[in-house]
């Protein structure tokens, strides 16, 4: 490999990106747009659930209970219903995701020291939100029940019964339980893959489409020199994009960063090597720019958004899919990113992930270099 030729190819490629508004936008604007969209948009926290109430009793007890729902930041009372029939209608129209029904005879059951029940109806089209909402509703009702119990006990002249066991939950790594902290590191992976593979997927197919490939093939440049020369500029652009993304994560979204920048840089470099060579491999195999960019999109964004643990935790996937995530490179990077950001893990803890990435990078790079034939079809 001769440095002179690699540098010539790299400079040419950089000039072409610089002069092509679309590539330039993809390289510099895309990270910003993606960070904004996904950073502000992707929020798995459940709050302000639109809620309807149906009070079939209208007693001070039932009002007290429903007021507690109103006071909770998890629920917004959007409508007060009059009959059971209204529940289905309100759900159908999407006015509410949750309905709280206090049945007639609620206070009678309470007074009779029998177990009183409150009905909570949930729209579970979004199962995740529904199960969280059910949990919050249970907590509100539980708080109400404890207060009632206390009151009954005091009225009977008894001392309040202490709760026999309490779970003392301490949350580590994401103390505020902000889903954003969990998602943003994954967004960095998504942006790098999107930009890196998209840009490189065009680099060889562009030469074919514009007719410049024939002359390039007639020169002594080797396929390795061509690949290294063509990937180098995108590697630098990728590092710049990574800096933009991390900057956004830390300064705009205030995601905690507890690891070392050196570990982060190592992981980013390895990941870039993987996605850039995937893009290059696609570009070498597919002659049209449109086709190449579509396939590159499919090979990067799909696995990263679905199989990396970016938003959907891997250990909650079915075993077959979990197995699949080991085959796809994305999980290694996303796991590493989350660990570096939130746990502050270093190479000592992350070496299996980094090694997997390095192996992936080596294999894909070798495939990409070999896939290119210095001949006309």
């Amino acid at each position: 490999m001769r440095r002179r030729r690699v540098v010539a190819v790299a400079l040419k490629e950089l000039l072409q990106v610089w002069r092509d508004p679309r590539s330039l936008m993809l390289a510099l604007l895309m990270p910003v747009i993606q960070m904004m969209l996904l950073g502000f948009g992707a929020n798995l926290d459940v709050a302000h659930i639109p809620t309807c109430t149906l009070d079939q009793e209208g007693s001070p007890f039932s009002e007290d209970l429903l007021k507690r729902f109103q006071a909770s930041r998890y629920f917004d009372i959007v409508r007060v219903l009059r009959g059971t029939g209204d529940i289905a209608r309100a759900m159908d129209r999407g006015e509410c995701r949750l309905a709280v029904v206090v049945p007639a005879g609620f206070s009678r059951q309470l007074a009779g020291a029998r177990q009183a029940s409150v009905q909570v109806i949930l729209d579970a089209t979004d199962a995740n939100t529904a199960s969280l909402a059910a949990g919050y509703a249970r907590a509100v009702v539980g708080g109400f029940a404890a207060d009632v119990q206390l009151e009954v006990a005091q009225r009977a002249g008894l001392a309040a019964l202490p709760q026999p066991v309490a779970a003392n939950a301490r949350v580590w790594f994401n103390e505020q339980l902000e889903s954003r902290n969990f998602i943003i590191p994954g967004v960095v992976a998504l942006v790098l893959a999107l930009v890196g593979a998209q840009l490189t997927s065009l680099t060889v197919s562009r030469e074919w489409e514009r007719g410049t490939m024939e002359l390039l093939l007639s020169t002594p440049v080797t396929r390795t020199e061509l690949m290294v020369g063509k990937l180098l500029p995108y590697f630098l652009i990728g590092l710049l994009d990574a800096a933009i993304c991390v900057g956004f994560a830390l300064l705009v979204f205030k995601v905690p960063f507890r690891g070392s920048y050196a570990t982060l840089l190592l992981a980013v470099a390895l990941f870039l090597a993987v996605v850039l060579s995937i893009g290059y491999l696609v570009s070498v195999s597919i002659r049209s720019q449109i086709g190449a960019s579509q396939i590159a999109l499919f090979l990067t964004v799909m696995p990263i958004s679905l199989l990396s643990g970016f938003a959907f935790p891997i250990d909650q996937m079915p075993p077959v899919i979990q197995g699949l995530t080991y085959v796809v490179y994305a999980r290694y990077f996303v796991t590493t990113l989350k660990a570096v950001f939130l746990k502050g893990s270093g190479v000592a803890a992350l070496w299996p992930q980094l090694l997997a990435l390095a192996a992936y990078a080596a294999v894909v790079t070798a495939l990409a270099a070999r896939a290119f034939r210095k001949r006309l079809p």
Partner: protein
Amino acid sequence: MTVAAAELTITVDRLQKRFGRFTAVGGVSFEVRRGELMGFLGPNGAGKSTIIRMLCGLLRPSAGELRVDGVDVARHPEDVRRRIGYVSQRFSLYQDLTVSENLGFFGGIYGVGRDRLPQRMRYALDMAGLKARADTLVGELASGWKQRLALGCAILHEPRILFLDEPTSGVDPMSRRRFWDLIHDLAAGGVTIVVSTHHMDEAEYCNRIALIDRGLLVAIGTPDELKHRSLGGELLRVECGSLGRALELLRDYPPARDVAVFGRTLHVLVDDAAAAGAPLRDYLAGRGVDGVRAERIDPTLEDTFVRLIGSRRPEAAA
């Protein structure tokens, strides 16, 4: 004619290229001598580009052997690529780079040393007449300038052999002329040049011409050899009143071995033009064609082309 092997810079032996069931080149053998300006003349789709692409190592031959500057192209394509310059039929420079950026890039990948490159770039700019346009985007240049720049890029590394595939297609006559002056200068400097064209006048400028049609080498020789020897006879130019009638009549006239229409005249191939003139006049006059004049002319390359390639066409043979 035997030529010492040392003088040969390109040897092509029974070269074939098939694309699926289509035979683009069907067994071609020839040699090019050092410093020679060799022209490939033939109609579009004759296989000229395919042969040149195989010589540059861009296409793998289906059969046959190819040596360029003594190197087996199939075995060591990279060795060959270092020694050659190539101007492809389709313009292949980067239109989104400037003139000097293109030169810098090709200088770099041809491995021209950093100390030497500025001088070579100046030379190429000078040669192509593009000094004032060094910072113009190539996409904004007219086609004549583009072709000269393509040639400039192809000679940065001072190759010993140049392959030019229809370098003047789509270029205006003045620029074509200028381009050929450059080719002659390079040839005079000792560069071996293989150039394909379908312009007769351009072929005349070559030392030797290979006449190629339907993937086969139809004839090879100097322009003069092709005009006289390959024609296999002498030419009579016939002018007369009814050209169509005369054409039909002469096709049934045994001494006329071939007849072709050239403008408002007929070119008739005969064994001996001096002896054939008078009987031919009488033959036509006796069958109602008036105003017949026949005179001996020197054949042009076009006559040979039409004779050798036209006669291979089924529609012309009818």
